């Protein structure tokens, strides 16, 4: 073999030389392609891992969280869980809303829409339809009617409810207090519920309610306190009901269908027609269905 073809040594082979000349026309030195700095694999892996987390793990985790009450970034409380809050804690669930739990509170998750407050304080702000969210206490239960409220329970089981938005139905057995925005109600260690009392009522009126002194209550009631009087029918004697009827009729005239004598045999439906004018006189909106 001719060495010129191999390594251009030796005699020049004319034919090879001719091929070099002809085919040399196709020689080119294209510029190096413009290359962007590559990122090490790890830097690709991190965004990839992030995409996996966002695409798969995160939705699964969010679905898991949505099925319970979430607290902070990671904790999720589900039915059967007990929360002993040593420090203030915020619980959230999309279908209900937000519950801020005070320090020293013990709370159980009964089910997704029902909590049990043993002791301590919660501040609930709900977005759920009325009647869905319930908080049990040892002596009463608070049924959310679309609202914001603070519920406090002492170690002896007594407690108070203060409503800042909407309404709460505070109930124990057959006794009920419908508490509107701007009013509070209490329950004692024996489970006796107070009627709702507006926070701007006089101290004397509040004291009379606390003592269940019906005569004083009637005497001290303003027109706005008509709601308190209307709630007393379910927890008073016949004589007391007549006294309340007379005072309430002075503050808010009853509809013609509600006769004074009907107070002797009072039952829950008897005074229903009185509610709308009483609410109007008390300056609160009626319970809305969301």
């Amino acid at each position, binding site marked *: *073999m001719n060495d010129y*073809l*191999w*390594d*251009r040594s030796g005699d020049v082979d004319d*034919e*090879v030389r001719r*091929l*070099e000349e*002809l*085919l*040399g*026309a*196709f*020689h*080119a*030195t*294209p510029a*190096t*392609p413009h*290359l962007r*700095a*590559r*990122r*090490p*694999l790890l830097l*690709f892996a991190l965004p990839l891992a992030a995409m996996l987390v966002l695409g798969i793990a995160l939705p699964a985790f969010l679905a898991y969280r949505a099925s319970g009450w979430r607290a902070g970034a990671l904790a999720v409380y589900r039915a059967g869980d007990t929360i002993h809050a040593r420090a203030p804690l915020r619980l959230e669930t999309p279908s209900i809303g937000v519950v801020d739990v005070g320090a020293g509170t013990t709370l159980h998750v009964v089910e997704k829409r029902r909590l049990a407050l043993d002791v301590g304080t919660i501040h609930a702000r709900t977005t759920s339809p009325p009647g869905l969210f319930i908080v049990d206490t040892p002596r009463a239960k608070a049924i959310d009617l679309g609202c914001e409220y603070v519920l406090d329970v002492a170690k002896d089981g007594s407690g108070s409810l203060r409503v800042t938005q909407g309404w709460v139905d505070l109930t124990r057995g057959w006794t009920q207090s419908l508490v509107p925005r701007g009013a509070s109600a209490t329950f004692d260690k024996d489970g006796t519920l107070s009627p709702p009392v507006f926070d701007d009522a006089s101290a004397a009126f509040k004291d009379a309610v606390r003592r269940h002194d019906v005569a004083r209550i009637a005497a001290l009631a303003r027109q706005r306190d008509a709601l308190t009087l209307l709630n007393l029918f379910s927890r008073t004697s016949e004589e007391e009901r007549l006294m309340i009827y007379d005072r309430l009729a002075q503050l808010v005239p009853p509809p013609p269908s509600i006769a004074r004598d009907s107070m002797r045999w009072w039952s829950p439906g008897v005074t229903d027609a009185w509610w709308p004018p009483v609410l109007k006189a008390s300056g609160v909106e009626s319970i809305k269905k969301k």
Partner: protein
Amino acid sequence: MRLPEVAPSDAELVLAAQRGDVPAFERLYARYAPVVRSILLGRLAAADADDALQEVFMTAHAKLDSLREPAAFAGWIARIARNRAEDFRRGAADTQQLDRDYAARSTQQESAEAAHALAAIRALPAAYRETLLLRFVEGMSGPEIAARTGLTPGSVRVNLHRGVQLLRSALDRSRVA
């Protein structure tokens, strides 16, 4: 005394490039562009080969992490080049006319002869084709071809010798015709 500089191996350059070292990849480009271009030129019009050359190396750069055996870079990029040439060739126009334009020799006759010789080489089996193009187009010597292609020097010798014989026969036949 200054120690002689030792050229980094392909594997060292690949590993560095995988870590994001662009100059390392540019050294791989300088090392393998002639081989890749010969593969492409054996299948595509010269102008297309230049475009495809850029694409092959950009593809290789983007997929470098998939090369698990860094020392196998030469074979890996040759495969990319052959695949890319197949894709390109599906839409190829009149290759020989394009090559005449590309060669742009002093006379049209010379340009036509150059394109004709290239076409004859393209008609040879791949082993001869790529070896001859490395020798006549890229101007590499036999030992350089062996070093870049991974072929043994003996194989390169055979390919060159046999390839030139076949090329000569092909050109002779075309002259007679």
